């Protein structure tokens, strides 16, 4: 058929063609395998990288919600100010790390160059505050109070101020309506840190670099709600960063407003009265030490008896929360947190703890009833009480002879409670306890002591009930120190003798411990908010509420209202009869007992007043003044550390707060027109259609503008 010789094929060539074919197949398989590996195995990873590549995000911060008082008056809101910021990235690119620019800026703003430099340095373990804790890529605010003139100077001479911007921005304002302060309740904001961004990354509310977050108080507690959600506009960009389209964008959701149960007017009065009481106490001479009272700290809580809502909460010493706005200065920060500061950031109402003194006796009385002692039986109120060679004095009182528990509360007779506690201690087995009932301790726990009340504020402390468990644990932790110190006991060193005693027997519940405990002295620690919760519970029939400050979370458009309803965490362990007996006794305190001299002329018929005074001993310090009181609607607990006696130091202040609430004058006449809050504010403020919450009238709604550093007016 063909003239072409068929000599082309030899077996060698055929084999080699097969080899070639195998090579080709393996090359193609390699490609296929690698393609599978990239696209199917690792596809997600590359998809994410592709998104990073071509999406640029522009963050539009959400407007932070306001914190309002019960009548809609802003306690914390936003204000437009001229903010001068420095872009650290730009500054670091300069040869002198921006030093020249910052010095020039300091000149324009009238600040010290070193202060400005301190504001832009980054925080680390070694750097003292102030420093920038936020992202280094974010503009760092130097001041938020630039004048228009200063801003114009910076803007017009942009070439002299590379990396510096001056722009109007919404900044937080703590308005202080009616002269109120509420610094510790409100808290403050500061820029988010890298750690926090990482932590919140996968949560429901991720953080943005530009975010400020609440650091304390309500700002922290309701941070998520207040912050809203920053809007993100996503642009698709090409390899040169040119925008080629708009990708899915999220609109900014402004933060919700929080309506609180705080009444700015009552808050202002509570603060003023607390401050005045402390000032007055400092004029009084302490008979024990012979010096005037230090009155170094104090707190007052005004609570709705029936709901546990907090109407006012003041802590002293205090500070102006506006110092945080726009970055805190070195001096201010030192004043707030330095070793020689009086720690004004602490909210003493929930973080200050002390022995309760006699206001604890309502718990001891209940414990005695529960242990089987009748409320109405007569108990001997002697002027002192002896166990062995130990003598326990009737501190605030004197000998009244045989009286019932109610009268013992009225006159605050210590010895009645000593006796009950001692007998109970003996019943529990004394120094060799067998299945002790520990009624006095158990009752304290049932009253909610030794654990946080659950108030909607961060960092509440738990206090302490010095029961057998605690004593054991405490002894374990301290015995080594005590026992070592106790070795010197023979030399007549008093502290060493105590140490020796503790080394030997602290782990046990000793008779003296129980006796002291029954009148609220010794190792017991309570916070003002715990005592307010307890007295409010006595007032309302026994319900221990979680105190709340937040009353409602209202979305920015006003359409979603989430009410924060009062929650209970327990009921007091007494029956109706005992409650009424306690109630009557506490009324007696105000009318004929230890607080009566502070409630002269009080219209007890119209507004039944109940009170209990307390003066707690603190080793090495002056006594703590306690004053717990309630009407059917309000409970007020006040304490002054190193302030003297309960009725002496705190009494007038508490009465003045009641006077303001009910519109009373000094003589006890009620003027309904002057009453700030004759009964609790039940309704939420009115919300307009556009979401604006209507504020009711208040005198002096905002104090005169804070004078800024460097302001030239």
């Amino acid at each position, binding site marked *: 058929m063909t003239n*072409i010789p068929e000599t*082309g094929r030899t077996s060698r060539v055929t084999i080699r063609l097969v080899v070639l074919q195998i090579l080709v197949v393996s090359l193609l398989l390699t490609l296929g395998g690698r393609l599978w590996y*990239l*696209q199917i195995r690792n596809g997600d990873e590359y998809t994410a990288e592709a998104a990073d590549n071509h999406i640029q995000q522009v963050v539009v911060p959400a407007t932070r919600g306001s914190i309002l008082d019960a009548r809609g008056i802003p306690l914390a809101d936003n204000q437009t100010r001229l903010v001068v910021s420095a872009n650290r990235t730009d500054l670091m690119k300069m040869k002198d790390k921006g030093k020249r620019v910052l010095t020039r800026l300091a000149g324009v703003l009238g600040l010290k160059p070193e202060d400005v430099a301190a504001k832009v340095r980054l925080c680390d373990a070694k750097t003292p505050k102030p420093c920038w804790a936020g992202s280094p890529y974010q503009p760092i605010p130097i001041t938020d109070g630039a004048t228009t003139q200063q801003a114009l100077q910076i803007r017009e001479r942009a070439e002299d101020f590379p990396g510096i911007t001056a722009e109007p921005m919404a900044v937080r304002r703590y308005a202080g309506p009616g002269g109120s302060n509420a610094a510790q309740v409100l808290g403050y904001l500061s820029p988010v840190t890298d750690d926090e961004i990482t932590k919140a990354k996968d949560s429901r509310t991720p953080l943005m670099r530009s975010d400020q977050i609440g650091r304390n108080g309500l700002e922290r507690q309701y941070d998520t709600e207040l912050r809203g959600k920053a809007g993100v506009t996503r642009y698709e960009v090409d390899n040169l960063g040119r925008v080629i389209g708009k990708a899915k964008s999220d609109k900014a959701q402004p933060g919700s407003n929080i309506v609180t149960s705080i009444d700015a007017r009552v808050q202002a009065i509570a603060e003023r009265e607390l401050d005045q009481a402390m000032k007055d106490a400092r004029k009084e001479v302490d008979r024990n030490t012979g010096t005037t009272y230090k009155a170094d700290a104090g707190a007052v809580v005004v609570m709705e008896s029936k709901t546990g809502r907090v109407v006012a909460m003041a802590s002293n010493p205090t500070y102006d929360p506006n110092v945080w706005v726009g970055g805190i200065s070195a001096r201010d920060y030192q004043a707030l947190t330095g070793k020689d500061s009086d720690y004004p950031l602490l909210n003493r109402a929930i973080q200050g703890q002390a022995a309760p003194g006699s206001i604890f006796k309502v718990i001891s009385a209940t414990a005695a009833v529960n242990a089987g002692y009748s409320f109405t039986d007569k108990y001997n109120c002697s002027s002192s009480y002896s166990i062995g060679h130990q003598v326990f004095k009737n501190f605030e009182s004197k000998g009244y002879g045989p009286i019932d528990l109610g009268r013992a509360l009225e006159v605050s007779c210590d010895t009645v409670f000593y006796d009950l506690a001692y007998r109970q201690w003996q019943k529990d087995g004394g120094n060799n306890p067998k299945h002790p009932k520990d009624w006095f301790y158990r009752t304290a726990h049932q009253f909610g002591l030794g654990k946080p009340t659950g108030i909607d504020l961060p960092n509440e402390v738990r206090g302490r009930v010095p029961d057998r468990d605690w004593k054991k644990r405490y002894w374990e932790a301290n015995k080594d120190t005590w026992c070592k110190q106790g070795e010197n006991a023979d030399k007549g060193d008093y502290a060493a003798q105590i140490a020796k005693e503790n080394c030997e027997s602290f782990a046990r519940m000793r008779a003296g411990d129980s006796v002291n405990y029954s009148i609220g002295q010794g190792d017991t620690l309570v916070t003002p908010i715990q005592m307010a919760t307890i007295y409010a519970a006595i007032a309302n029939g026994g319900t221990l509420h979680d105190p709340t400050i937040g009353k409602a979370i209202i979305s920015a458009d006003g359409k979603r209202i989430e009410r924060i309803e009062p929650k209970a965490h327990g009921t007091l362990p007494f029956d109706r009869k005992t409650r009424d007996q306690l109630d009557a006794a506490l009324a007696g305190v105000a009318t004929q007992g230890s607080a009566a001299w502070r409630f002269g002329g009080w219209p007890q018929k119209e507004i039944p007043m109940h009170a209990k005074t307390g003066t707690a001993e603190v080793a090495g310090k002056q006594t703590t003044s306690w004053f717990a009181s309630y009407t059917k609607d309000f409970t007020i607990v006040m304490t002054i550390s190193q302030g003297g006696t309960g009725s002496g130091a705190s009494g007038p202040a508490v009465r003045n707060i009641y006077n303001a609430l009910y519109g009373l004058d000094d003589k006890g006449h009620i003027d309904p027109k002057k009453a700030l809050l004759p009964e609790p504010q039940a309704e939420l403020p009115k919300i307009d259609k556009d979401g604006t919450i209507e504020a009711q009238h208040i005198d002096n709604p905002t104090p005169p503008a804070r004078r800024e550093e460097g302001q030239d007016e």
Partner: protein
Amino acid sequence: MSADGFRIRRFAPRRSTWARLTDRDSVVRRLDWTMLLAALALSAISTLLVYSATRGRKELTHGDPYYFLLRNILNTGIGVALAAGAVWAGHRALRGAVPVLYVVSVLVTASVLTPLGATINGARSWIQLGGGFSIQPSEFTKITITLGMAMLLAQAVDAGDRPHPDHRTVLQALGVAALPILVILLMPDLGSVMVLVVIVLAVLLASGASNRWTAGLIGAGVLGCVLVWQLGILDEYQINRFAAFANPAFDPAGVGYNTKQARIAIGSGGLTGSGLFHGSQTTGQFVPEQQTDFIFTVAGEELGFVGAGTIILLIGVVLWRACRIARETTDLYGTIVAAGIIAWFAFQSFENIGMTLGIMPVTGLPLPFVSYGGSSMFAAWIAVGLLQSIKVQRPLAAP
């Protein structure tokens, strides 16, 4: 005309063109349609991908988004016509013209080194023609080297004088290959040199030349690489490409940028891709040279594993049919030509796709049938034409 099929029909009655084309023994019926369809499918996909990669690039398209689309269709058309020409002429007929083609090819390739040449991406391997056209002569060298070597190596064997080419012939054939390779090495167009070396190896292998030649050549290749490296013939950009290949984290904004962006594009495609024209990497022009050397990334991103796998599969089909042709042809000349083309397509595809997948270093090699570019499209289609011609002119099985 040496094919007997045509001679027999000289005495047959005159038939219509249609009848002649569809006749059982006709050229058309004997074409390898599977390969043709696979190659056509690749060219069609190519047109879509090129369009997707270029429609937004105003600086390239001069404002006409269809600029590259139309040109690619034109290139494919010319390529198919060239293939038809090759079939019509017949590879054995071309055998006589091989010396001329070879000389012309070497001269044109060498002219690139003269002021006629243009430098693109560091290699002086282009000749600018008027009207925006340019050719890359090294693409055609792949054909002429194959044909030239095949002619020399098969001569004595096909004549029935020897079972295998002797050493002298092999040496001559190597000389034929060496000349254009040296010229291209001077450009320097390292990618093409690599392909040419692989072609030479495959050609020697298929020719039945002694194993020692194959082994020796591989040894020489290795030695050559070492020499090239040592003597610094490589430009810095070429060394960097290899460094970036060895260490993908190497300078991601510079050399490694290409490979990284290519891998992101392909990897983000997943199973079915982002959809044609919807790839963010492609739309955002993150991958450089995307319509030419990195065309596979468009497929990877927008068509996903399914689409990109289809391209590999289609190339596989072309190679499979080519292997069949190489096996079934009876003359050594055809076998060698087919083997050379197989090696060329296989290696160049592997290198091109491999570099986008990060398993091969980056070199400026187009993906046959898919990358935009006239020269490579024409060369690939001429090669298909040659393969078809080998199949068509194979003696018919004895009745």
